[in-house]
């Protein structure tokens, strides 16, 4: 019995000493509560924060849920807020900032963020509002063996080349529907439009106002491109999101895909798929339009924020814990889980697509305060066009009308 206790005490003291030794966790005895989405890279960040600083905190709670976006505003509005930190992406930072639920981090960065790189700091009007740790974007996946077999030369770099490659694959009788895309009605289908519209050089709003401006020649061109692609996509494309497209890819039922970079590691690993698929899958930049230069993608970052409605010492402890995890050791241990923005990242094959897309000059997901409403309208109203029951102009004018109604109700117009 005494022996057991001794071991326990030994472990606890080891734990404390190592954590105190390894990282500066800010004020002691604070409560750290994190709300985050649920994928490996975020777990890696939160894990290292927990192992560094849980010992010096009075509590360390994590809520990982893919529904984080839906609950964050409600959870952070009361004072004190439910979580001391929310791990966000471009669009969710806007969502929190619209209600004033994140605090500027300049003084905390000065105190604890010596090891952060300057491009990790997300600044809005000169104030640091979030610390990014990873990048993500949609890009192209392709199967070298199938392209070769159907006589496609080189990697398709434009949408027209993608379409003609898909046609060749179909003509060769290899696959009837060689394309996979995340086109599930709602957010996903809206996002596909965003990427292709940006590739066409489109702007979402009239400069300096919240008035939508997508019903134009570029919008129509983007929709035509989308329609041409959808011809070659799986019949059930309107029900498919990331998990489904990843599944189709791993089952070897697709030759060209537009999927998230964060799926690269999972697709290329040796689980859930055959060697034939994984060894022939290559990740490359998102295509551009013919004659254009902007890849059809939106660049995303994921980063940490600190809540407005918590005490300063809780905020400080949370920030210290989270940035203590952003080290090159953490990156080394989880290198293939994400495209890390932190020092020490060695880009592997799973990162090739996002790097090439970012280097090609793709745009960030737009951070307009009212962007979510337009995105929602796109997700609902483009479906009729894709089903073929509506013209492109009609679909785009519907989107603008729906957006206008919603934006008026929400106070943006």
């Amino acid at each position: 019995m005494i022996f057991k206790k001794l071991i326990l005490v030994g472990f606890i003291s080891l734990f404390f000493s190592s954590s105190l030794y390894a990282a500066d966790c800010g004020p002691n005895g604070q409560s750290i509560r994190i709300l985050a989405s649920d994928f490996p890279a975020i777990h890696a960040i939160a894990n290292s924060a927990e192992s560094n600083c849980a010992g010096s905190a009075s509590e360390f709670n994590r809520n990982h849920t893919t529904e984080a976006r839906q609950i964050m505003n409600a959870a952070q509005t009361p004072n004190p807020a439910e979580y001391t930190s929310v791990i966000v992406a471009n669009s969710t930072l806007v969502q929190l900032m619209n209600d004033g639920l994140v605090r500027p981090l300049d003084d905390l960065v000065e105190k604890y963020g010596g090891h952060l790189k300057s491009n990790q700091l997300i600044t809005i009007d000169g104030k640091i509002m979030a610390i990014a740790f990873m990048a993500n974007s949609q890009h192209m996946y392709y199967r070298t063996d199938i392209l070769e077999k159907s006589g496609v030369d080189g990697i398709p770099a434009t949408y027209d080349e993608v379409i003609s490659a898909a046609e060749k694959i179909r003509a060769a009788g290899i696959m009837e529907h060689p394309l996979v895309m995340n086109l599930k009605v709602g957010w996903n289908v809206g996002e596909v439009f965003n990427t292709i519209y940006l590739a066409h050089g489109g702007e979402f709003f009239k400069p300096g106002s919240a008035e939508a401006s997508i019903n134009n020649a570029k919008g129509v061109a983007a929709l035509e491109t989308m329609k041409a692609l959808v011809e070659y996509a799986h019949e059930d494309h309107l029900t498919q999101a990331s998990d489904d497209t990843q599944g189709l890819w791993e089952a070897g039922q697709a030759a060209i895909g537009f999927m998230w970079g964060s799926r690269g590691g999972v697709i290329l690993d040796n689980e859930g798929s055959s060697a034939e698929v994984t060894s022939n899958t290559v990740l490359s930049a998102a295509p551009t339009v013919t004659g254009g230069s902007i890849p059809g993608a939106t660049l995303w970052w994921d980063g940490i924020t600190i809540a407005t409605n918590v005490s300063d010492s809780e905020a400080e402890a949370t920030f210290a814990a989270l940035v203590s995890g952003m080290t090159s050791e953490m990156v080394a241990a989880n290198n293939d889980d994400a495209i890390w923005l932190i020092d020490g990242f060695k880009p592997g094959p799973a990162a090739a697509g996002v790097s090439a897309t970012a280097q090609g000059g793709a745009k960030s997901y737009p951070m307009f305060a009212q962007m979510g409403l337009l995105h929602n309208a796109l997700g609902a109203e483009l479906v009729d066009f894709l089903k073929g029951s509506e013209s492109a102009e009609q679909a785009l004018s519907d989107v603008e009308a729906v957006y206008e109604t919603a934006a008026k109700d929400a106070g943006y117009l």
Partner: protein
Amino acid sequence: MKHSTFLLFSLPSLSVMFLFIAIPIVSVFIQSLHIEHKQVIIVTENCDPFGCETTTSVDTEASAKLKEKAPLGKFNGFKTYSNRMHFAFDELGEAWKSSDSFTVFVKKLYNYPLYRALSFTLTYTFIVTPFVLFLGFLVAVGVNNLPKMFKGPTIFASLLPMIVTPLVGSLILFWMVDGDGVIGATLQKIFNDNSLSLKASPVLTWIMLMVYGIWHLMPFSFIVFYAGLQTVPQETIEAATIDGASKFQRIRHVVIPHLMPLAIFITLILLMDNFRVFEPIIGFRAEAHATSISWLIWNHLRESAYPLYNAAGATSMITIFGVAILLLPVLIRTWRDFKEKNKG
């Protein structure tokens, strides 16, 4: 019973109804008359790992001041009800003027979310309800005629569709009707068409949702009818048999009239339930081809990062009115029967 005693008896339930039903409905109604204050927008310079861009942000302090003055929001009257998201009166007027035939107008009508949702919701309600009533009755009669030892297990098995949670039930079916699933692949084989997809065709999606609805709700009408069958007076049945009535005639002239009040009760419940169809649309990811009124409410509140409480409130009020209109004929009929009985 004296009126005062009756009142005292029902006071607890009345007050609970008032607190938890009447007050929330009034509050939802009031919410539907208000919209958000004007957001104070400022142009900002945002920098992220990929570069800097000029975008817009909300000036939260200025916006919060507006909110503090009138927390309910800006009064908007019934404009939420008449806007494009709901009855779309202005747009419909335009559409009516610019359409040369009624079919063109109906097609344009279908472009507006509320009418689109109504068309599926009403079709669903009016197809699923009679099927559930009729099939539930058939199953009840069938089970009632089984030998005693089989009754228990059969009843349990017949109740299963209702025991399975709607979302789980629809998800399981969703996987089965996939092109790679049991049902989907079999259908492709039968019709010898590899591109046949239950999820890609609007008509097949509607049929799938309704078949699911019938499957899910049938146990309810079955079990109520089955309970009713136990109370059918045996003397009347025997008398009818002696008079030479066939099995079918006995059911038609003795059993069905006896079960009529139950049938009305089931119809009422089914109409209400089906008008609020929601889970299968989510489970089957059928939003592209079928939306319902309840789905609209959910969409207003959840899909965007900006919950539109006014729109959700207005759609909720429309749902309540819709249910009231649906139930009216049945209620009027019951009331008339009741009065006639009292007279006689």
